[in-house]
């Protein structure tokens, strides 16, 4: 049972308190660019969740079978440490996975492809994806924990961007001081939202 509780706690933590966008500032570029419209924000959020859930475990496998110190023992090379190649390989895995996901969705669900298609290439350069893979290594998650963490981070990112899109729709009718319009007010709204998400930090399972 303890195992399940641990997984639930990782899930809640990655969605709320340790929200990858609001607490670690990852994925800001596309967050600011795409949050103007609720429909596109939801689409991108779904695509990010999908790709994160796949790439984090994929990078876990790459890390533990190829890169970690002593990981090449199965190939008879226990001394080799390829850890310095981590960044390049992770980026390559992400770019490759995004491409494969795009092809698979196009083949099996054209409707979904029409909704997500435009966003998929954008995701390769979304720092949330690479960030989650790097955090997964740093925090020494197991494989199942990584799956849960990837999924939770995606859901957290999606929650944040959807909430932001709705706030910005309301904000159109507000009287914002001239110098603060655009980027300035977006940052302050995000800050207030980050505060709201931090309320959950008191929860201990």
């Amino acid at each position, binding site marked *: 049972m303890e195992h399940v509780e641990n997984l639930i706690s990782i899930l809640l933590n990655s969605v709320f308190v340790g929200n990858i966008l609001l607490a670690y*500032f990852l994925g*800001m*570029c596309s967050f600011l*660019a795409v949050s103007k419209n609720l429909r596109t924000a939801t689409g991108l959020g779904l695509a990010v969740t999908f790709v994160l859930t796949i790439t984090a475990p994929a990078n876990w496998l790459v890390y533990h079978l190829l890169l970690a110190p002593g990981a090449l023992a199965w190939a008879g090379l226990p001394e080799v440490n390829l850890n310095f190649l981590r960044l390049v390989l992770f980026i390559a895995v992400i770019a490759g996975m995004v491409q494969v996901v795009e092809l698979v969705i196009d083949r099996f669900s054209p409707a979904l492809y029409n909704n997500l298609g435009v966003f998929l290439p954008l995701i390769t350069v979304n720092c949330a994806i*690479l960030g989650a893979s790097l955090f997964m290594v740093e925090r020494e998650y197991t494989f199942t924990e990584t799956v849960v963490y990837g999924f939770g981070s995606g859901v957290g990112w999606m929650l944040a961007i959807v909430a932001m899109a709705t706030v910005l729709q309301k904000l159109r009718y507000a009287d914002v001081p001239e110098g603060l319009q655009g980027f*300035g007010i977006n940052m*302050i709204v995000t800050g207030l939202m980050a505060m709201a998400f931090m309320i959950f930090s008191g929860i201990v399972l």
Partner: protein
Amino acid sequence: MKLSRSKTYKAISAALWQSNPISKQILGICSALAVTVQLQTAIVMGLALTLVVAFSNLIIALLRDLIPRNIRIIAEVAIIATLVILADELLKAFLFDISKQLSVFVGLIITNCIVMGRAETYAMSHGPYDSFVDGIANGVGYSSILIGVAFVRELLGSGKLLGFQVVPDVFYSAGYENMGLMVLAPGAFIAIGLFVWLEHTLLKD
């Protein structure tokens, strides 16, 4: 020729003020905020990014006639990733404590839109010298915002600058308290929002 008319001067002033990568073009915020709790980490991060942009611009400008157009993105990512790994290993070797604090954010320079953006829009169409200067100028423009935000956050959040206490003990005994919000994530969003507001108002002319 007057200094203020030279091409180099124009490139530098544009990157610092008129089109500052963070406050005007909204690029590269991903890593900008997480490292600004302390002045020291912000300075090191700014330095690392400046070096990566400058040298990636230089190398790409030198190779721009050799890189086939179709695969230029992959070539650019490979060059940038190599430089980032170099920067990461150098930090680990010489500034181990700071590199621990920066954790994954040095690695995330790869997906920082500034580096990619300058490579794509400037270095691919300009000579090596101009590109190098442009890289330095954009790196410094990025660092200036980073250091400004870090200055405010460290001063208000913990009463210190570069780790030295600057708020005198008399203030504390008179009832002054550090602003806890500034140390947390929302503080970064709000600080940068106000910072941009100030800059827009001052530069409006």
